[in-house]
């Protein structure tokens, strides 16, 4: 009896860990949390020229010696229109630093209507000492975005990646 229950305990401990890949698979299959993968371009793409949206670009670093900024702070666009923005990162330190950008959107449900085709956040960025790099983001905000929304914010934060870690699994 004790043996059975101890084995059961062990199984549940492993089950706790098994929830991690299960969670990732679940999010992948249902398309929740799809922040670090390119989206597929929709075929029935149209531009709502009646409507204007202001996009604000925000850039932060957390715990790594980089400067990080968008080359423009905002853009006024029509929903459905393809947008290109350049971001610039500079490594101020004397060592090679690996960073990973994590996006954050406001309002929160913007991620349902934001299709990103190119982004520096899809891979990790390696910067040599004092290196500067300009990187593009290309995306579309779909016309399905609720009509009451006039301003959205797209924010990126760079985190330092510990050695040998890959945020993006391919």
């Amino acid at each position, binding site marked *: 009896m*004790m043996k059975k229950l101890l084995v059961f305990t062990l199984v549940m401990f492993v089950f706790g860990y098994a*929830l991690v890949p299960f969670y990732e698979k679940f999010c992948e299959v249902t398309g929740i949390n799809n922040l670090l993968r390119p989206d597929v371009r929709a075929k029935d793409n149209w531009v709502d020229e009646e409507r204007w949206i202001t996009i604000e670009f925000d850039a932060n670093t957390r715990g790594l010696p980089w400067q990080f900024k968008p080359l423009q702070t905002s853009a006024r666009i029509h929903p459905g229109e393809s947008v290109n923005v350049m971001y610039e990162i500079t490594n101020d330190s004397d060592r090679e630093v690996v960073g990973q950008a994590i996006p954050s959107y406001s309002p929160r449900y913007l991620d349902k209507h934001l299709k990103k085709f190119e982004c520096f956040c899809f891979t990790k960025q390696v910067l040599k000492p004092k290196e500067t790099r300009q990187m593009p983001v290309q995306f579309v905000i779909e016309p399905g975005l609720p009509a009451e929304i006039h301003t959205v914010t797209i924010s990126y934060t760079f*985190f330092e990646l510990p050695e040998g870690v890959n945020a993006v699994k391919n």
Partner: protein
Amino acid sequence: MAAVHGDAHGHGHDDHHPSGIMRWITTTNHKDIGTMYLWFSFAMFLVGGTLAMGIRAELFQPGIQILEPELFNQFTTLHGLIMVFGAIMPAFVGFANWQVPLMIGAPDMAFARMNNWSFWLLPVAATLLVGSFFVPGGAAAGGWTFYPPLSTQGGLGVDLMIFSVHILGASSIMGSINIITTILNMRAPGMTLMKMPMFVWTWLITAYLLVLVMPVLAGVVTMLLTDRHFGTSFFNAAGGGDPVMFQHIFWFFGHPEVYIMILPSFGIVSEVIPTFSRKPLFGYSSMVYATASIAILSCVVWAHHMFTAGMPTVGQLFFMYATMLIAVPTGVKVFNWTATMWRGSMSFETPMLFSIGFIFLFVIGGFSGVICAIVPIDIQVQDTYYVIAHFHYVLVSGSLFALFAGAYYWIPKWTGRMYNETLGKWHFWLSMFFFNLTFFVQHFLGLAGMPRRIPDYNLQFADFNMISSIGAFGFGLTQLLFLYIMISTIRSGEKAPEKPWDGATTLEWTHLPTPAPYHSFEKPPIVK
């Protein structure tokens, strides 16, 4: 009964156990261990209560008076952890240790040595937890649910908390393995599963829940530990992890955990109410099935704690309906208790008062739970005092009141002495009054938008907070009365009659002398 009594003396040489402190350290007797569990949990209850007094003192007035915000956060965090893992859970294990063998006619727990171990892990864990206040950076301060990123960023206090949770988890798992084996293998002849007292049934189901979810908690705190120190990224977004995943895994443990804390109290109340209504429990088998269905449902509702963490609408709807479904078996239980009292020959001694108080207030907590389960309302009241009021109605006037009921009910059996009925009634009525004074107004605070875990608040909340704080001080002091009643009962209480409750029907009352001898049921009773 005489035969059983004589038998206990026949084996008198077994009674020569070490005396003094070594008796308690080396004991493998379920009664000794049960007693230690109960004293330990009461000590932890006082520690957690002191933290609560600190919290309420700070919230007595708007502004920061007594506790700096960092310390306030440590107080709320440790109050929750200590009350859940140090007070309520060990108290129920203490009841299980005392009562399960007595109620199924077994001589002791199945694994007596492991039983000793599972108790003596607790003081170690408690030392780590309480000691974490004195390390640089102080105790963990990210809430008792220790969500990352706060818990991956905190200092040494968080590590101590993680180890403490590991040890407490190991202790609970050992305790439940012991309880399951005892109940399944050591019942007296004729004691079929469906003849077991309700308290034993609820503990059997609770013990299964514990071995189901405690290892998951151990897993998730291990992930936290490796995230903090060994470069993994389970919950670190930059490394590809996800902090929301922590919440899912944590609440996969955490929701069954709240039923782990309430099911044994259903058991206690299901013993006390028939005794003082002098009628058998109404709908015994439906009670068993209701307990089992609550346990099963509790495993599929965890995400109702995270409606605002981001979830597809389908998910919200599923967890909302599943949560509301739990009200059905719970309603069956409340109905059965009420029906047991219906036309019973009722008397209102202290255990019965606490049980009726339990039903009355637990139902209020249950209803506010159904309200919180409704997604649009939950989004409104998430992390407000409404939620605080809700879970204190189920944990304090639920679990704790049932523990009091059980303590008054069985203390004559345990010590052979009777508690002071007048003081017991005072304890009940003061607890009842001050509890409601503390927590009922918190519903209003929550609906008005006062957030939890914040040491300061807007002026508009001042009056209700002052009322709540006065209630809390009163409730805290009242529990010292309980301590006094228990100590004076043990030291100088009147000698209890052989069967103080004439309506009691379970084995410990019908087949054992009062007080229960140190070794009981060495010859199993025959149950018809």
